């Protein structure tokens, strides 16, 4: 009996905290995608709470009512094989719940995979976000600048992140703007986000990627378009250009602070083409304007040499 109260109490603490004054990052959305996800989470919490409460109540009632200490010694529990109506109810109700949840799930899936709601008519800001052990490189091809470990974004534009990795699989995650997506070395994945309000958000790699994983974070600052433009202008005036040598140096395993460059690494170290190699037919028109085979070879060569450096450094790193 004791147990149940502990559990109920923990559940209520959970709910109290979830609804409490200091909102949890995931449930404190600052963009339409995170909003969609938070809505799905709230709806599912609500439906699931009903199930949990029903099960708890039934269990508590039955345990209280049918405990042996309360029954007479002569009581013989009956033999009950089953009952069609009861059994169809315990099948039927879960089926209905799953159908409802499936509809919600499918709708929200298409929502989070598309341009964010309310931003459909705007040209998205494309940012290439690539990870290397254990940092993030953000390339702004439109602005022709690149940052490391921090991200400035305008608030009134949809954001289209193109993710890939120099090394292990990582997962790009800004909880308050929207859920994560993997960055992998052999393909580009696309994540559509948007920031409704200005503010500073936490971003990180969520997928375990080795020794420096815990510190593999970045900061995100959303600001009005005008401020963003000013920042770009300032970067163009003050930052050093990103050279190939410099970039290869950056790729070496380790942690770096926040860095800013003019130019992007996309020119000399292009991202993997399309989706999976050889299956990118559908996406090719979407993403590339160059002939893919030439670039593939080039890219491979580049990442090869980058990789060799990495391994060397890796062994050194582990002394």
């Amino acid at each position, binding site marked *: 009996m004791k147990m149940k109260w502990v559990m109920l109490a923990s559940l209520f603490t959970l709910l109290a905290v979830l609804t409490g004054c200091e909102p949890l990052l995931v449930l404190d959305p600052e963009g339409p995608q995170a909003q969609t996800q938070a809505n799905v989470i709230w709806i599912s919490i609500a439906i699931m709470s009903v199930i949990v409460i029903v099960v708890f109540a039934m269990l508590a009632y039955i345990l209280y009512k049918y405990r042996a200490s309360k029954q007479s010694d002569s009581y013989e529990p009956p033999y009950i094989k089953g009952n069609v109506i009861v059994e169809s109810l315990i099948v039927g109700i879960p089926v209905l719940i799953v159908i409802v949840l499936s509809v919600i799930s499918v709708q929200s899936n298409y929502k989070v995979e598309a341009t964010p709601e309310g931003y459909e008519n705007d040209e998205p800001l494309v940012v290439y976000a690539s990870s290397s052990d254990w940092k993030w490189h953000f390339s702004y091809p439109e602005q022709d600048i690149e940052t490391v470990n921090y991200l400035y974004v305008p608030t009134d534009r949809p954001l289209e992140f193109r993710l890939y990795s120099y090394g292990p699989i990582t997962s790009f995650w800004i909880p308050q703007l929207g859920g994560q997506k993997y960055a992998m070395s052999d393909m580009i994945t696309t994540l559509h986000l948007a920031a409704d309000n200005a503010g500073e958000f936490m971003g990180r790699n969520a997928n375990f990627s080795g020794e420096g994983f815990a510190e593999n974070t970045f900061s995100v600052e959303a600001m009005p378009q005008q401020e963003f433009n000013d920042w770009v202008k300032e970067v163009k005036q003050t930052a050093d250009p990103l050279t190939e040598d410099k970039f290869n140096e950056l790729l070496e395993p380790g942690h770096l602070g926040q860095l800013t460059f003019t130019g992007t690494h996309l020119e000399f170290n292009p991202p993997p083409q399309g989706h*999976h*190699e*050889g*299956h990118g037919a559908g996406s090719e028109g979407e993403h590339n304007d160059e002939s893919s085979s030439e670039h593939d070879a080039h890219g491979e060569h580049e990442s090869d040499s980058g990789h060799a450096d990495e391994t060397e450094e890796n062994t050194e790193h582990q002394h």
Partner: protein
Amino acid sequence: MLKMNNNNTQPLEYSTEQGRMNILGFWIFIGAEIMLFGTLFASYFTLETRTGSGPAGAEIFELPPVLAETLLLLTSSFIIGLGIHAMRLGRKKAMMTFFIITLILGAAFLGFEIYEFIHYVHEGASLQTSAFTSILLTTLGTHGLHVTFGLAWGIVILIQVIKRGLTPQTANKSFIFSLYWHFLDVVWIFIFSFIYLKGMM
């Protein structure tokens, strides 16, 4: 199909309870093997076009040796079927002859496969060349290892039949071995169809 509702008409390999359990257990093992090769096929189809800097299937596949391997294995599967038939007739000599032919055909199959592998390596398609060649040679190699193991197993069983004659135990082992051999043929048919023919289509 043979009817066998009572023990008198039951073939020797089914005559003991343990024998019947062994046969059933082997069938379940075949279920697991279906999944093993299913996984290899799933990986093959996924990696099929990922040839990196190496050759694609159409560039290295050659029909004649593949066709020879197919015919050899199909025939050996037919012959071992005859072997089991002879065993059920109690004709030990005939059965052993069929088993020996089966094993010879199996060895010839392996010979062709080894030739094929050498050819691939020659064409610059080794195990390390690309994802495609890795999975190609692994899938073929897994089947080839099964055949090799089958050859050794078949010889061991033949020796036992020679030494002990057709007892419930040796008959049971021979029958299970025939199941294994037929199954390898089935797997080869899928390799033939979905690796070679699909690749050369």
